């Protein structure tokens, strides 16, 4: 069953056409990996899905659970269960990380008509995630992403994913800049979310993270289009031959 369908998507940033008739179908509960050369449009695709203001859709459509989300506000898409772990998470000085996380979680609980958590309940719920991700507890009392190292920012993205429990999870180069332990911990976090219902779109340049999280599908994105979809067996081939030799499906 498909949960998200991207059809003939065309999108530009400024005057530059970046997505040029992209087709992609995400199957519910599966792990989809996207690989492709620098500048191919991978981050643009993820931004387009979450409604980033930089991107203008000029053609095609994105449907989520059967409904077009093209005109939805970013916060609504988020509340409907679409999560993006940013390639470069922005720093927000002065906003306490724990306070932010709780606000985001409570916004979601409220949207779903559930009871909001108080500060104590929330901290308790968060503690176990911190441990698993190897995050020091001072990281949640600090300002959101401010002065975080590259790896700490990525762990903090995963922490948000674990707390918000989204349905479609887009991870844009979550593995870039992670040390060996962090890569394992982050992968563990991702695997914890794999429950056969949640759907992943994992953008990466490296096979290492894919060894941990075992994708169901590999899509090759090149020059604004998905040119090939295959099983995980494609990864070693790409590692060896690069993207040049890939023929369009």
């Amino acid at each position: 069953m498909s949960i998200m369908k991207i059809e003939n998507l065309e999108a530009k940033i400024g005057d530059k056409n970046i997505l040029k008739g992209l087709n992609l179908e995400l199957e519910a509960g599966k792990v989809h990996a996207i690989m492709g050369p620098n500048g191919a449009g991978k981050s643009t695709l993820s931004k387009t899905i979450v409604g980033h203001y930089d991107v203008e859709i000029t053609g095609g459509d994105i449907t989520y659970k059967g409904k077009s989300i093209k005109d939805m506000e970013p916060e609504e898409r988020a509340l409907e269960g679409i999560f993006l772990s940013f390639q470069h998470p922005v720093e927000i000085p002065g906003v306490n990380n724990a306070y932010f996380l709780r606000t985001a979680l409570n916004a979601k609980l409220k949207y779903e008509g559930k009871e909001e958590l108080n500060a104590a309940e929330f901290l308790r719920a968060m503690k176990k995630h911190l441990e698993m991700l190897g995050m020091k507890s001072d990281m949640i009392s600090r300002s959101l992403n401010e002065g975080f190292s590259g790896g700490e920012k990525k762990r903090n993205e995963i922490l948000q994913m674990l707390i918000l429990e989204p349905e479609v999870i887009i991870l844009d180069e979550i593995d870039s800049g992670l040390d060996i332990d962090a890569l394992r911990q982050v992968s563990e976090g991702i695997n914890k979310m794999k429950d056969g219902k949640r759907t992943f779109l994992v953008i990466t340049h490296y096979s290492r993270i894919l060894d941990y999280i075992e994708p169901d599908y590999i899509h090759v994105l090149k020059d604004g289009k998905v040119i090939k979809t295959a099983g995980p067996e494609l990864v070693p081939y790409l590692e060896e031959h690069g993207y040049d030799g890939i023929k369009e499906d």
Partner: protein
Amino acid sequence: MANEGLDTAISGEYELGFEIDIETDIIEPGLDIDTLKFISKKKEEPEWMLDLRIKALKKWETMTEPHWGKLDYTPIDYQSISYFAAPKEQIDSLDEVDPKILEAYEKLGISLDEQKQLAGVKVAVDAVVDSVSVKTTYSEELEKHGVIFCSISEAIRDYPELVKKYMFSVVPMADNYFAALNSAVFTDGTFVYIPKGVRCPMELSTYFRINAMNTGQFERTLIIADEGSHVSYNEGCSAPTRDDHQLHAAVVELVILKDAEIKYSTIQNWYPGDETGKGGIYNFVTKRAICEGENAKVSWTQVETGSAITWKYPSCILKGDNSVGEFYSVAVTTLAQQADTGTKMIHIGKNTKSTIISKGISAMKGQNTYRGLVKINSSAVGARNYSECDSLLIGSECGAHTFPYLESKDTQGQVEHEATTSKISDEQLFYLRQRGITEEDAVSMIVHGFCKQVFSQLPMEYAVEAKALLELTLEGSVG
């Protein structure tokens, strides 16, 4: 489509713009000696007070309006203002306040009924409407502790010795143009005296309401903390939405003796005018504290969200050895508001210490200027100052300016200054929205984070109020 949310209006409605429907006694506009005689007579003042008023008027007439502030406004015609307005049917008994006024104060969230106040936190209130104090609550209970809490008009009649001794002692009559004007025409305000060694048993507060049209409000507040005493005082204010500008020129004097402490908090929410600059209060205020004795401590905390123009520099004269002055400020300018605000810390005594934390927020076409002076006299051996001035810009049409001045005659003084300017970026807002937080909540989240250091200085109930007020001020037609 680069985030319209930010570029368009980020400004909420002014919620307190209603008018209290009462009859008002108001004198004809104009200012001369007869005006002063009229005010003095209305207030049943002794002769000496009238003489001082006349002296102040004469001085004022020789002075010129200052224009060094980074403020742009149409000149004020002082003869077109009415200098006295009072709700009619003012009955002498304090218990008989016009129900409409009580109701209006309820609407502002302030109960003037002692019975109705929630148990637990007691706050004594002096309620000032236009030129008169309409009611002061808990005066009797405070009296048991020797605390005097009354209107300045009453103090002039009942405690002339204290008034003569301290009024004009911190802000001299002709200190500046607006102070001189106030000295001549001041109408009401609050008087507080905390006796030796007394910790004031409740929060004191004054709520100023401008109601009548074409009037100015010229209140005068005098607080004296005798040796070893402690008081926390809060002031709030608001005014109806009107198309013309109204002048508010207040003077506040604080005297802190040996080992005493005053915490003075302000939540300023005068009507700010509209986005084109029409209407709004011109707020020209002189606030000054003197730490007379050793170990005296004063802190000014202000949250400035209202007024079309704010010109205000709460200052501390640190005369006693080891005395401490603090200034915590959040100033918000949105719409077409302009604020030129800051503080002066004058170090005279040995080992005096001052802290300045200033947070300026500008949105829409708001212009926010911090102007601060740290002056260290040669006598102030071991003086220390820490200043931090941060500006936050929302959108691209607003501005922030910082003018820190330092005069140090003592090389032993230790002065530290930090300043930052940041902008709420589209990328930050987007990040928060991607986590399901609405754009408005995202803005207020960043703003609260920015103001945290200042809000934490406010008494709890006021911190909550300040937070809500800020939210309302910056809330807007997003998207």
